[in-house]
């Protein structure tokens, strides 16, 4: 966790410095805001990870001497197959195309997206793949 924290904080600090330099030198608003947002992207997760890094023991993947056995056990649920990302993709495409050809397409698209939301929730409750 410490390495991850470091990477984010380095990025955040770098952008913060650049933001200050750029703002003082150019006074241009658009770029300053974007650079500031980039600094935030580094600092926010960096601080979160720093918070955790102080409170938890190094994970097996953080220790160079960890043995493989230390990482055994379930790592999480990995659905094997599910149609819903595909359905959601279709829905998103319809919703996107509604910006081109008319609102009625969004209504169809949102139908797909809603059914994905419902079914993915049900899928998790049923447990695993379709």
């Amino acid at each position, binding site marked *: 966790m410490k390495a991850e924290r470091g990477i984010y904080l380095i990025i955040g600090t770098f952008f913060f410095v650049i933001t200050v330099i750029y703002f003082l030198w150019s006074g241009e608003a658009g770029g300053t805001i974007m650079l500031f947002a980039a600094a935030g992207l580094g600092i926010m997760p960096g601080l979160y990870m720093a918070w955790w890094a102080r409170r938890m023991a190094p994970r097996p993947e953080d220790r160079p001497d960890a043995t493989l056995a230390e990482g055994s056990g379930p790592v999480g649920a990995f659905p094997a197959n599910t149609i819903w990302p595909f359905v959601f993709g279709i829905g998103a495409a*319809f919703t996107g195309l509604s910006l081109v050809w008319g609102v009625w397409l969004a209504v169809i698209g949102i139908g797909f997206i809603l*059914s994905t939301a419902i079914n993915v929730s049900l899928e998790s409750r049923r447990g695993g793949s379709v």
Partner: protein
Amino acid sequence: MSFHKKTVGRLLVPVALGVAASVAGMALFSQGASAATLSSSSVAKGVSSVTYGGTRGSSKAPITTLKLNPSTIKLGHTLFVENCSSCHGDAAQGTSRAPNLQGLGAATIDFWVSTGRMPLADPTAQAAIKPPRFNRSQTLAIAAYVSSLASGGPPIPQVNLGAASLSAGEGLFSTNCAACHTITGVGDALADGVYAPSLYTATPTQIAEAVRTGPGNMPRFGTSNLSNQQVADIVKYVKYLQNPNDAGGIGLGHVGPVAEGFVGILIGLGALMIAGYWIGGRAH
């Protein structure tokens, strides 16, 4: 493979949901539009107060001509050079890219420029209505410049809707315009990628200009075909179409008289699909 059947069955749910939602949505959006119409009751009143083919309420001329200010010609020239000349030539004489505009009259210029069709972005496709590049006074200045180059062509008409008859306009519209623009004015595709555009964004002046100048594939109606009075009637009807009283229910985008069948098929199919899914689910 029970696996597949089950999933295919579940796939029907989003489709059915989508279809049902789309019908509901279309109904909703159209309902909103017609509600707005009902609130503007002046148009609705216009329907009842007009006697069929009867006398006009006003004695003013149905169409008057807009006088262009000669002092704007200089501004018009500058605008023409910067925006039109690279295709139409610096004196509107035409080039290999675009036709001669001299003698076409102010109405033609005003129509093409004020609807945003000109300047054209892509000559290979039909000129489309888009946000115009110029404001009203700039447009008129360009028209003044071009009409100052050569005489001829119709001037810019101004329609006096008070002197026009809605019901006469309906008759004239269905005879002369509806074949391409459809009876609801929503526009329709013709052959070869050409289409009759929707009339819903047209102003009275633009409608009259289109009738008199015949842009694109549209026929040109001179005063011997349609009198000024008749043109004003048509304009009044088109303005009514832009904000119609959808008597009897929802407009469904004014796609035409097939609306009820359309709804029937969509809802019926949706219901059938849900039923099929339900039966399939039970059979398992």
